[in-house]
């Protein structure tokens, strides 16, 4: 009798032992329990975040927190988890899913990164459990998560940054409500992944139908943000309506004219001036510094991408004996970008030579005789203001200009903001120009880069067809 009990008990124990790991992984598969695998050193913040997240979610969310002591263990056990939090976050764990993927990095604190593993989702819609994992990381990298880190003393309660007008601005952290009257800075915010914090913003290029369609793809909610204040632009603002939105950060440009009145609101104001490749990168660094560790990380990634792209193009184009001479025209055929403008820097970064490099100021008007003297090889024109190719190809007086004769007249692409304006998307503009000028010699694929870029920085999964029609 006792012997029989022992055997059954052993069998039961063995069974239980076999089942328990199964139970663990099975538990990991059920929608309401999320396994978060984190470093022991990060216990305090992770527990606080998990608790806060759970109470923020309707119906509660059970997060199963498991702590290990080394990053190696995390890599080894990654398959069991929905979210991994580690200090070795640069390399993705070597897992492939039959139907799913490993996400990009979410930087939670300096030196502490996380990824979610979407094991049940393929192409498009996220499985609810995977979506919950993603939402957890978004929560942590958002203002609420940042506040918890601040309370724990892991992040500063305020940062001091030098904006692009040279002023030192103190920005209390976290920033929850951003007002961006500078319609270029809005795109910085999207690029660093903080768009959900915008309460009102200007959107460069999104007022015409083409731009509006494009922006709706990037953010279906953008019109509500754009219209939150009746008047808000570089020249004037309805300060009272702006105040009613209770922003805690205002993004302006060095040319915004109503900032004296706005300073009465007591809200920190960052002035941007990102109209050259270097200045654009500085602007991204600045916005990253003000919006938390994950934003800073995204900004760094963007700057690295920008520089490596420029280096790649340079490597491929510097051997060209006779760089092409490019004429960059604006809203009228005879209106051209001066040498001081961003557009000229883009042309030169793409390996071309701008015929208008000696002109100064803003847009210049020239006459056809001057164009005949320059006789450019390629004409590029902007995707706004009614500019069109017929103005060049259909006009008899342009017919003798080399670019028109050889049919090399091209329109810059735009999704929302035109790719020739100093928004982050302009890196795609540079790639596009390089590919257009030197199709054989530059092996960067505009469509592929566009898909990667918009997914990584705007969270928008652009389809191949759309990318190809943009890059035409």
């Amino acid at each position, binding site marked *: 009798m006792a012997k029989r009990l022992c055997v059954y008990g052993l069998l039961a124990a063995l069974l239980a032992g076999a089942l328990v790991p199964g139970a663990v992984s099975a538990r990991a598969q059920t929608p309401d329990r999320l396994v978060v695998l984190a470093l022991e050193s990060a216990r305090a913040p992770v527990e606080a975040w998990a608790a806060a997240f759970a109470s923020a979610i309707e119906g509660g969310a059970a997060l199963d927190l498991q702590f290990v002591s080394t990053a190696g263990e995390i890599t080894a056990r990654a398959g069991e988890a929905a979210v991994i939090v580690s200090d070795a976050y640069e390399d993705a764990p070597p897992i492939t899913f039959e139907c799913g993927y490993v996400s990009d990095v979410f930087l939670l604190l300096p030196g502490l990164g996380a990824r979610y593993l979407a094991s049940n989702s393929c192409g498009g819609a996220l499985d609810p459990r995977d979506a919950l994992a993603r939402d957890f990381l978004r929560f942590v990298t958002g203002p609420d998560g940042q506040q918890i880190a601040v309370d724990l003393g892991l992040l500063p309660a305020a940062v001091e940054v030098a904006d692009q007008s040279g002023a030192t601005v103190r920005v209390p952290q976290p920033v929850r409500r951003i007002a961006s009257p500078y319609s270029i800075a809005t795109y910085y915010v999207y690029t660093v992944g903080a768009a959900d914090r915008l309460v009102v913003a200007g959107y460069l290029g999104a007022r015409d139908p083409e731009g509006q369609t494009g922006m709706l793809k990037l953010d279906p909610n953008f019109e509500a943000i754009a219209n939150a204040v009746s008047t808000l632009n570089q*020249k004037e603002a309805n300060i009272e309506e702006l105040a009613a939105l209770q922003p805690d950060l205002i993004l302006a440009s060095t040319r915004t004219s109503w900032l004296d009145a706005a300073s009465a609101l007591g809200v920190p104001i960052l002035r941007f001036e990102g109209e050259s490749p270097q200045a654009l990168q500085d602007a991204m660094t600045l916005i990253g510094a003000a919006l938390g560790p994950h934003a800073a990380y995204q900004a760094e990634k963007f700057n690295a991408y920008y520089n490596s792209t420029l280096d790649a193009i340079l490597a491929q184009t510097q051997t060209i004996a006779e760089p092409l001479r490019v004429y960059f025209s604006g809203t009228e055929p005879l209106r051209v970008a001066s040498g001081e403008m961003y557009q000229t820097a883009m042309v030169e970064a793409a390996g071309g030579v701008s015929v208008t490099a000696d002109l100064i100021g803003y847009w210049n008007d*020239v006459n*056809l005789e001057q164009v005949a003297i320059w006789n450019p090889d390629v004409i590029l024109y902007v995707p*706004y203001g009614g500019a069109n190719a017929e103005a060049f190809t259909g006009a008899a007086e342009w017919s003798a200009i080399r670019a028109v004769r050889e049919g090399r007249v091209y329109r810059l692409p735009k999704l929302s903001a035109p790719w020739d304006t100093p928004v982050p998307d302009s890196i795609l503009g540079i790639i596009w120009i390089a590919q257009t000028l030197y199709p054989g010699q530059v092996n960067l694929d505009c469509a592929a880069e566009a898909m990667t870029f918009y997914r990584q920085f705007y969270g928008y999964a652009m389809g191949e067809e759309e990318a190809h029609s943009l890059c035409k």
Partner: protein
Amino acid sequence: MRALSRRLPGARVWIHSERRQAALYLLILLLPLPVAVYCIGLGRYAISPEEVVRALLDFALGRHDASAGPDIAYNLVTRVRLPRIAAAMLIGANLAVTGATFQGIFRNPLVDSNILGVTSGAGFGAALMLLLVGDALEVQVSSFFFGLIAVMLAYFVSRLYHSAPLLVLTLVGILIGSFFSSLTSLLKYVADPLDTLPAITYWLMGGLTDVTLDDIPALAAISLLGMVVLWGVRWRLNVLSMGDNEALALGLNPARLKLLIIVCSTLMTAMAVSVGGVIGWVGLVIPHAARTLVGPDHQRLIPATMALGAVFLLLIDTMSRTLLPAEVPLGVFTGVVGVPLLLVILRVNRTGWR
């Protein structure tokens, strides 16, 4: 003769012998053609005189062979320089002579044809179309019609007041002009600052950069027709400028004559503005310069003003398109050249007007 000049300080310029006066007058009338010929050879792109002549002959005789490939010299001479020169001369003559006639009928040497608001109305019409549609042809047509509307408004409103008709007309004209300027400011306020607003500002600054051959026939027809009519009434302008009662006593119908001149000048000015935008100073400065040189008698003043206006604007536009790689707006030169010119005239001229 010299004794007389000494007794009249400042009257040096036109108390010369009649023969010298006549020679000066003839010189002025003959000036436009040689200046035009000289200017068509000028431009940033070097084209030799032979090529210019060949291009002009080909154009005039219709024997240009387009299938031989695009010919940059021909294109530039006939499609860029020629229309600009024609437009500059027509608009210059147009604005100058309408300024002179308005100075005559308003008996006021400080007015030009915008006193009744035609330029302000035309500017509003252009801005409106730029805001709504943006197409060049509609912009031109709209500016033309709103120029006419502004003047009609000024004329009919002033008729409601029966006292001091000239003063009332001047005041109402200024008011209507201001009204349309304000409306234009409103349009600029609502315009898209990236796009439409620069287009409006650029249009208002005035310039002949976008003039094409297609603009010339309508401009020439109205300008030349108007100039013929104004030339026809040149004698009566003398009498009109003495006062309405005197004109009546000498058998004229001042109201009808003024109406004819206003209608004619307004059509001409609206046409000029719709092609070239707002070009200031010509209507004010040139009549004074002409008066200093040939005297106030409109028999000579009218033709001289036309010639000097044509030459002035032609030289200004030529400077604008040749001095720098980028186009310098016309308004820069008309001010920079026109203001010192007017100051010099004011010093020299004590006899052109009181």
